[in-house]
């Protein structure tokens, strides 16, 4: 029989193992327990990961994304916006990037003054510039206004932002928190902008809940996903009670508000939440995605994540639980962002260069710690850790495999199109590909994207062959006799997959069936198949993927093969 081991991964994989000897099982359990909770950054996989790459290539890899170039693409610097070195050594705000963009007319003292009036010093900076009409999206943290405090520099700052967009007489200030939360913050000397103190602002709450609510909501969602043989009602009620889709919709609604303000009202927007590194990032990056088709390309999406998330201090290590730390800091903020993007892909199947796999892969790597990009909580921290010298970057790794992530339906258009998502409730669906990613039985058994990719891959080769034949035909044309050269047709469709993430049980896979009830009345054999199916294993998971472990009693028969591979992995 053996001793069962249940592993919950952060990327929502659930793995059951059965290990023959109880002793071994406890050993594995204890080892994993320790390995999955590193204390020092240096213990993370990225610092030992070695893809046998040349040192120079590694360096080039880190330079793949250049944010200065990205701002140039947007049309910045220009007459209204310029780069500032006020945060050169992270002295004004230690969670921001070193290179920041602010209105040309504000002076350094104004910036510094404004930063003192903002939580964690996160003063308003440019996030996205819409060159079609000069409207801009800016981001910051909440003002330290308390009940009545004011700050002249901060007011000047906002006015400068407003003036940098001559096309509009006002600027939206969007507080992404629910109003009650913002009011509560006033008691702690924080709060929100008072419309009377700032000229020409329009203040707006959009009501996205905080990281703690989101964490609990995900917890409830995962409980629903793991129900054994739930009825339709159990599932829908559970989904509703988790509130997860409500939160996803709130983020989407807020982002859509931003993109409408910019594209339709020609108005600039300043966005903040409490510290401006969670909700603010979600909303700003999604608004960028809606406004700018560049971000919907494979490369552009990397740039977007780098620009809004990594460089501006989203606390990846804390939110993703990289190191043993405060569990209250953990929250699926990035996951929600990825899910919103997936929702957009579902709604606009031809608008994105990448597909669902790309999103899942990126999501996987924020937890895997195989690459340095997401390690640490700010650029400053990454610099101190010498991430660029000691680890590899995820982006070139993904870019190399871009063929896999391509959406065959993608229709690049010459002109930029602004997406207008429909945010009616039925557009927000449960993302089975994410939360039940490893319950293969629940996934569609065939993929249209795969067939299309195959068809498209086939195309150039075949066209070549046709071309080839035509030419030979021409050569022979003189004699008017049919050609006779033996020609090999290469219609090989698939190159073997670069990477095997998990071994699929091919023989049982196609026959897998999920019958909610009634199975037991017929056959035990199917039960056995089901159990085997459930024990998928983790060839490629890193110990950082492990979320929780449990020794549970399962009715699975011992499977030596699993154990062997598992031990192999441990030895490595």
């Amino acid at each position: 029989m053996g001793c069962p081991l249940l592993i919950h991964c952060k990327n929502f994989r659930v793995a059951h193992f059965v290990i023959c000897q109880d002793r071994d099982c406890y050993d594995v359990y204890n080892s994993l327990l320790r390995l999955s909770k590193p204390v020092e950054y240096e213990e993370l996989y990225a610092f030992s990961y070695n893809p046998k790459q040349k040192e120079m290539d590694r360096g080039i890899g880190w330079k793949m994304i250049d944010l200065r170039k990205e701002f140039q693409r947007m049309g910045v610097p220009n007459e209204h916006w310029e780069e500032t070195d006020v945060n050169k050594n992270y002295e004004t705000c230690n969670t921001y990037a070193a290179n920041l963009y602010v209105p040309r007319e504000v002076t350094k003292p104004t910036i510094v003054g404004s930063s003192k009036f903002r939580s964690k010093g996160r003063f308003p900076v440019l996030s996205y510039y819409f060159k079609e009409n000069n409207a801009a999206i800016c981001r910051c943290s909440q003002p330290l206004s308390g009940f009545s405090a004011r700050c002249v520099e901060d007011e000047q700052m906002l006015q400068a932002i407003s003036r940098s967009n001559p096309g509009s007489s006002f600027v939206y200030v969007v507080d992404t928190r629910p109003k009650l939360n913002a009011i509560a913050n006033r008691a702690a000397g924080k709060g929100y902008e008072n419309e009377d103190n700032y000229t020409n602002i329009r203040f707006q709450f959009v009501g996205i809940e905080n990281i703690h609510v989101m964490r609990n909501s995900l917890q409830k969602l995962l409980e629903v996903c793991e129900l054994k043989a739930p009825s339709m009602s159990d599932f829908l009620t559970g989904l509703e009670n988790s509130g997860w889709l409500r939160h996803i919709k709130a983020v989407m609604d807020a982002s859509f508000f931003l993109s409408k303000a910019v594209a339709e009202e020609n108005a600039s927007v300043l966005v903040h939440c409490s510290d401006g590194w969670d909700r603010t990032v979600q909303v700003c990056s999604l608004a960028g995605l809606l406004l700018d088709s560049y971000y919907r390309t494979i490369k552009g999406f990397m740039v977007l994540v780098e620009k809004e998330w990594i460089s501006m201090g989203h606390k990846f290590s804390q939110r993703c639980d990289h190191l043993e730390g405060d569990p209250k800091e953990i929250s699926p903020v990035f996951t929600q962002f990825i899910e919103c993007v997936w929702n957009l892909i579902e709604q606009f199947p031809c608008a994105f260069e990448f597909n669902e796999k790309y999103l899942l892969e990126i999501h996987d790597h924020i937890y895997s710690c195989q690459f340095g990009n997401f390690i640490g909580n700010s650029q400053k921290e990454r610099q101190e850790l010498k991430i660029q010298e000691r680890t590899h970057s995820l982006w070139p790794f993904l870019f190399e495999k871009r063929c896999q992530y391509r959406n065959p339906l993608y229709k690049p258009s010459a002109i930029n199109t602004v997406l207008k998502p429909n945010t009616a409730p039925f557009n927000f669906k449960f993302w089975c590909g994410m939360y039940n990613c490893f319950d293969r039985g629940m996934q569609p058994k065939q993929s249209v994207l795969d067939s299309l990719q195959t068809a498209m891959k086939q195309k150039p080769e075949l066209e070549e062959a046709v071309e080839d034949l035509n030419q030979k035909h021409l050569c022979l044309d003189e004699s008017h006799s049919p050609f006779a050269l033996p020609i090999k047709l290469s219609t090989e469709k698939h190159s073997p997959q670069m990477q095997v993430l998990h071994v699929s049980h091919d023989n049982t896979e196609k026959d897998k069936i999920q019958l909610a009830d009634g199975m037991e009345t017929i056959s035990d054999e199917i039960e056995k198949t089901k159990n085997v199916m459930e024990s998928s294993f983790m060839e490629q998971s890193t110990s950082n993927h492990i979320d929780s472990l449990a020794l549970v009693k399962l009715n699975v028969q011992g499977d030596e093969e699993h154990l062997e591979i598992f031990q192999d992995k441990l030895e490595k």
Partner: protein
Amino acid sequence: MEFAELIKTWKVDDVVVSRPLLQPARGTLCLTSHHLLFSSRGAGSLELCLLIRNIDAIEKSVQNLSGYQTIKCVTEPDGDRFVGSSGIITVKCKDLCIWYLEVPGMEECLNIASSIEALSSLESVAHMYPFFYRPKQASLQQGCDPCTPQVQFTKLSAQTSNWRLSYVNQEFRVCASYPEAAIVHKSIDDATLRTAAKFRQGGRFPVLSYYHTSNGMVIMRSSQPLTGANGKRCREDESLLAAVLGPGMKGYIIDTRSLQAAHQARVKGGGFESKSNYPNWKRLHRAMDRSRVLQESLMKLVEACNDQSHSIDRWLSKLEASKWLSHVKVILTTACLAAQCVDREEACVLIHGSEGRDSTLQLTSLAQLILDPDCRTISGFQALIEREWLQAGHPFQLRCASSAYSHARLKHDAPVFLLFLDCCWQMSIQFPCSFQFNQHFLITLFEHAYASCFGTFLCNTEEERLMLNVKRQTISIWSKINSPSEREQYVNPVYERNDLVIWPSVAPQSLQLWQGLFLRWIQSAEHQTEAYAQIYHIMAHSRKSTQANSEMATANKEAPMPRCQDRSEAV
């Protein structure tokens, strides 16, 4: 003709027609005996030709000048008071679309409304539009009978000689809801069948529904046995079932009622096969909901879909409360169970509920879709519908009399067929390359089952169709679907024949709301259509180049001989 008397107003000008996703259009409205016609002038003109039969419910209201938010119901035309004002007629269709007609003049409005009501309440089948529909190209014979029991039997006899075609039901003497020919086990003679039929409700004795080529197992269907409270038995019925099982074989009887319901049925003369009288047959009870419950489920679902003001929580709780997806799950699960018995357990299956004309047919047809790749083609699916629904006596006329909006609480209507189509769609999204048809095909069948210019879905049984001469006097929908110009639009561009048995997932995570059908009139499908066009384009292109290539290759293969001759000649 009697239609003329029902129409109080033939024609109204200056009518504004609108529906969600469509710009309102102003034009002329006409009523004919079978249609509501509308034509607008000018650019972006709207032409509407709505079958009266398609109208499920109609509501009248006064246009409130201060804004149409407060719509008041008008109970009685109140003389001249309404002259000069206008009224809104809300036309709710069986295909789930809702039209708003703004008619100037209260009287005109009420006349139009009552005319539509009168016309749409005509129940006589012989007066329905299919009997008048005569398009130029189509001939009446085209596309009839793609699959008669005879055709099915010819196919079957190529594989096994254990079954025979019986004409015991000639002139529908044994069972009114069966076709005249039925496939039964060869060792059972017609006399036995006659006696066994008396022991089954409505005379629906067990007949062959599907033969599984790979292992010779079969799915049969029937109605419940009439054991009654005293546990009557019928040797002929027992021998009929015993004959199906060879030595050492086992069988499963899937009863679509709960055990309790089956017990209760005995009081009314129905019942179930007892273990002792039917050895080797094991009964499995799977409770599936019936007409009233299903109809209410559809109404609730459509109501939830039509209200866009919901928050997510409200939407999810309404979706849950409608129970629609629960029904889908139960049906698919039970169909899988039946297929499982045949393919995995190597056992024969008999399916019945009480009448054997509703849930039974859902199961037999879905199980075939799982097991038989032929059913997943366009022509195979047509044959399946012919066999398992039309000839098997699904009472289309009763079940599809009203759809989601009707206020007339009819006792017999139920979206049994729609649920079946939904299950097909669920399977098609899980196996997007294994079905030759697309969702447009399924939606077309849904529409025509409820209201059609074709005669295919008229009446409840083959007998009724024969009496009304439906096959001679109306055009079959298959003739439209199979015409080369039409067929293209139903083809799934990524279809590639898959000879395997396909097992759909029935986990709630895998089942989805069929947006293409239920939100068709509510949400723009612009981007999905664009994606579909793109898929179509890619696949067409790929096929063309493959084809060009293989032509070249064939030309190439044939080439060597003459060339060698050339050479030898030259030498």
